[in-house]
């Protein structure tokens, strides 16, 4: 089907996944409010949210299976890049909702709001991936962020959660400010907020100068906040540690993925013409992020905090793809985000499970002997850690190779070497969890009860399966990712030159 936007209905069709998910979120909100207040209907609402995600996935699949748009300059892109990213967001949201089920019920959180916020935040992410206009990106970013601010502070009875929410909100507001100001300056310089028009304007070389460069710098700062790149990462560890663990998983995986997808589209499509102006800065940010994230993660004694720094480090690896700025790197970024979302949520699911068993425990000591006490969870956690470390046989390895390929193609030798050297550093802290799990004796404890719900096990199985699949037979996913970036950087005919 061809979307030519002759009728207003075409806009609805182009935004079908977002429309479905927003409507569903509202239904859940209403059901949550009309239900009882003691959290009893929590589980049902969670399952209902999953149905909404499934519906959105179907809509996404419909768009994927051959819906095309006329031209390539509309505010909303109907391209495979967006749809591939949507798969990642929907998968991430589904996983996070499942691992939240037991948590929400146990902490007696208000389920209606919780799941509705998660769906709305996901809608925001999907907008960010689809936007061909800086304003839409901003709208999506705010929709996502406001949902996640609330989620981070959702556990009101927990002071750390409230602190996390406030901290995230304050710094997030800053980031939004930077981003908005950047948009304004770029608009001032190029006369448009449309990414393609900007691309054409900067490609001619007609537009340059301080106004544009300042705008680009502010955009970069705004995005760097959202992907928690060094030195804009300060909020990350505290927020990740304080927020409820399932929400942390959501932030570390999906939110970061959404920010990267928008970052990529703005910089690689819109600002490709001024690559010379920004690549050096991103080079340094990527290096700093990889080094600081990995080095600081070495000394963390809380697994949640360690994973927070690890997610900073992964942000650094992903930034390498932006610096490389070629099709291989863009596809590598998508593939990496897919794998990263799965393995990170998997790891956080285990953190939730350990926390369930020893109240609130995310200290590394709580993992002593965990593997032998819970062999299934232990094996999964080991797999996720190996994947995060980028070990062969797991998706994390293939993703890293893909990123490296992009970097090598762009002849970024030094950045590639920095990437692998910092990867070696990361082995230490990932292995440390593994040795606590398998090689340390734990003191006797009595309160052994298995309260890891069946649904979490399903998510873990699915995540582990995906990690192994992308690690051993990555071919199919790779090709989808390559297909997704095909033509992405091509600025519409008549508006500029080819890639």
């Amino acid at each position: 089907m061809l979307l030519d936007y002759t009728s207003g209905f075409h806009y609805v069709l182009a935004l079908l996944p977002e429309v479905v998910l927003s409507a569903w979120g509202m239904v859940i909100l209403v059901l949550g409010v009309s239900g009882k207040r003691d959290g009893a209907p929590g589980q049902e609402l969670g399952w209902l949210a999953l149905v909404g995600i499934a519906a959105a996935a179907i809509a996404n699949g419909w768009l994927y299976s051959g819906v095309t748009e006329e031209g390539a300059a509309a505010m909303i892109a109907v391209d495979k890049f967006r749809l591939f990213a949507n798969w990642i967001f929907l998968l991430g949201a589904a996983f996070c909702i499942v691992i939240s089920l037991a948590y929400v019920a146990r902490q007696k959180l208000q389920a209606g709001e919780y799941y509705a916020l998660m769906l709305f935040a996901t809608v925001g992410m999907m907008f960010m991936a689809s936007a061909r206009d800086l304003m839409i990106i901003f709208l999506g970013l705010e929709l996502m962020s406001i949902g996640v601010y609330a989620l981070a502070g959702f556990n009101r009875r927990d002071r750390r959660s409230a602190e996390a929410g406030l901290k995230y909100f304050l710094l997030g507001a800053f980031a939004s400010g930077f981003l908005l100001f950047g948009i304004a300056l770029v608009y001032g310089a190029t006369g448009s907020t449309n990414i393609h028009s900007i691309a054409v304007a900067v490609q001619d070389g007609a537009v340059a100068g301080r106004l544009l460069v300042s705008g680009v710098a502010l955009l970069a700062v705004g995005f760097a906040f959202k992907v928690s790149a060094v030195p804009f990462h300060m909020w990350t560890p505290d927020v990740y540690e304080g927020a409820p663990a399932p929400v942390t998983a959501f932030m570390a995986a999906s939110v970061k993925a959404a920010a990267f997808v928008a970052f990529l589209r703005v910089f690689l499509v819109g600002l490709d013409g001024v690559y010379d102006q920004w690549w050096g800065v991103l080079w340094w940010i990527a290096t700093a992020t990889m080094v600081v994230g990995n080095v600081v993660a070495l000394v963390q004694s809380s697994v949640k905090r360690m994973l927070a720094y690890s997610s900073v480090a992964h942000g650094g690896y992903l930034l390498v793809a932006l610096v490389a700025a070629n099709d291989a790197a863009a596809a590598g970024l998508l593939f990496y985000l897919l794998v990263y979302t799965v393995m990170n949520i998997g790891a956080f699911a285990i953190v939730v499970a350990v926390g369930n068993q020893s109240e609130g425990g995310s200290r590394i000591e709580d993992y002593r002997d965990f593997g032998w006490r819970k062999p299934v969870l232990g094996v999964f956690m080991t797999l996720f850690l190996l994947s995060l470390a980028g070990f062969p046989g797991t998706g994390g390895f293939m993703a890293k190779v893909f990123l490296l390929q992009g970097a090598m193609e762009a002849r970024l030798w030094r950045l590639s070497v920095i990437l692998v050297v910092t990867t070696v550093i990361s082995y230490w802290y990932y292995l440390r969890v593994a040795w606590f799990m398998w090689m340390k004796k734990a003191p006797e404890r009595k309160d052994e009860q298995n309260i890891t719900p069946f649904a979490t096990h399903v998510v873990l199985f699915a995540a582990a399966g995906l990690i192994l699949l992308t690690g051993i037979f990555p071919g199919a996913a790779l090709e989808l990712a390559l297909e997704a970036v095909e033509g992405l950087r091509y600025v519409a005919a008549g508006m500029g030159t080819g890639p």
Partner: protein
Amino acid sequence: MTDLLNSFGYEAWILHALVWGPVAGMLHVLAAPKDRAKHIAFRWSAVLFVVSLGLWWAFDPSGGFAFRSSVPWIRSWGAEYALGLDGISLFMVLLTTFMTPIAILGSFKYVQSRRRAFYALMLLLETGVVGVFLSMDLLLFYVFFELTLVPMYFIVGIWGGTRRIYAAVKFFIYTAVGSLLMLVAILYIYFSSGADSFAYDAFLAADLTLTEQLWLFAAFALAFGIKVPVFPFHTWLPDAHVEAPTPGSVILAAVLLKMGAYGFLRLLLPFFPHAVQHPTVVTVMMTLGVVGIIYAAWVAAVQPDAKKLVAYTSVAHMGFVVIGVFALTVNGLQGGLVVMISHGVSTGTLFLLLGMMYERRKTRLIQDFGGIARVAPFFATAFVITALASIGLPGTSGFVGEFLALLGAFETHATAAVIAALGVIFAAYYMLPMVQRILFNELSEPENRTFPDLSRREKVILTPLVALMIWIGVHPTPFLDRMGPSVDRVLERVEGARTGFASLTPELGVRLEGSIPESED
């Protein structure tokens, strides 16, 4: 024999069976009841060994890479699941399939806890190692190369001694540093070859300038040098050996170290022929090899812990491999290969014997023993033969390898060979006192009077090992015949580069006329 093997399509399935058989065994072990795990693991590995023996006859040494097969693996990158076997990998594979059941059998008493996990990891390790030796695709090679780290990390870390975690992590990180840089180097060649393929032949065809070759050589040499280990990258080895459980030490010494030396022969020499002939590179590698031999021998001589002593002898032996390989002569390469096999067998056996001592006395300190020969004659016999093979006494496998390696080195680097030859004397200096203090001195400690001799299981383990050491020592021709042509091809490739860049022959698999070697015996 060959016809018999071909009648059931041996050529078609053997390599795949050797790579994936252990994984099947691993799943079987995991599904089996705890008490039967060790028997199941042993049977799987023994069957795989018997099956792999067919390679001895089925492999035709003159024909380049045999049994090649490839299936597209990751199409968009051009990576393939490609396996192949030549005269170099033949022996490495046989060594692996031979030592794995022996190590498993040797662990029956040592490993008492968490047996299912242990045997599953042992079999997974076998898959990784065999995969390394058979891969004909660089990405696949890398995956297997790294895959071996995980099982070894857990074997050392869970079943090891008191400082096991330190040793396991050190082992893991050391080896990972090198191999990740190698990954960057592999990708560099992948892009500069322009073939969009990770296939071994495509990498051979890559046209690299001398500067590029030197940098890439450095990355590969670091990865393999740490694995071998070449002095000064050896410090992880004594720790890992001392802390590892007996079967872990056996596999580590017998097989894992060989992956590094194999990398020298399979990748380093053919890929960077100009770099390996660069005078500085040769000098550096020769020096490191010689220093490794001498230094390790001296350090070994003062070790109070017998296991640590043997660990250092590994470093010394691998020094002979290094000088043999970088001599870039037929004798040197063949000698290096025989040292690899011989060291695998003899050092593996020494670790088994030390494990048996530890099981009996719960100590490995040399001073706690003495006069064992009087109470345990069979044990003493095996120990003496193995120690002599390790020293390199004529008539044992050690002699053949070290002699050839020294001969080969002497042809091109006389000084290095002369100094390295001193290492053979030092070997006697550290090994014989240990033998004397353990086996012969006064039977002073009362616990040693009840030192039980070998059990039937232990005799079954040691007999084939001792027989192999003597066989190679007395009649090495069948071994040398099989590795000869493959070694020649590596050298042809290296020497082809001597005449200039234009004549680089991409097809290592194509054998030139009239280069059949005389076997050295």
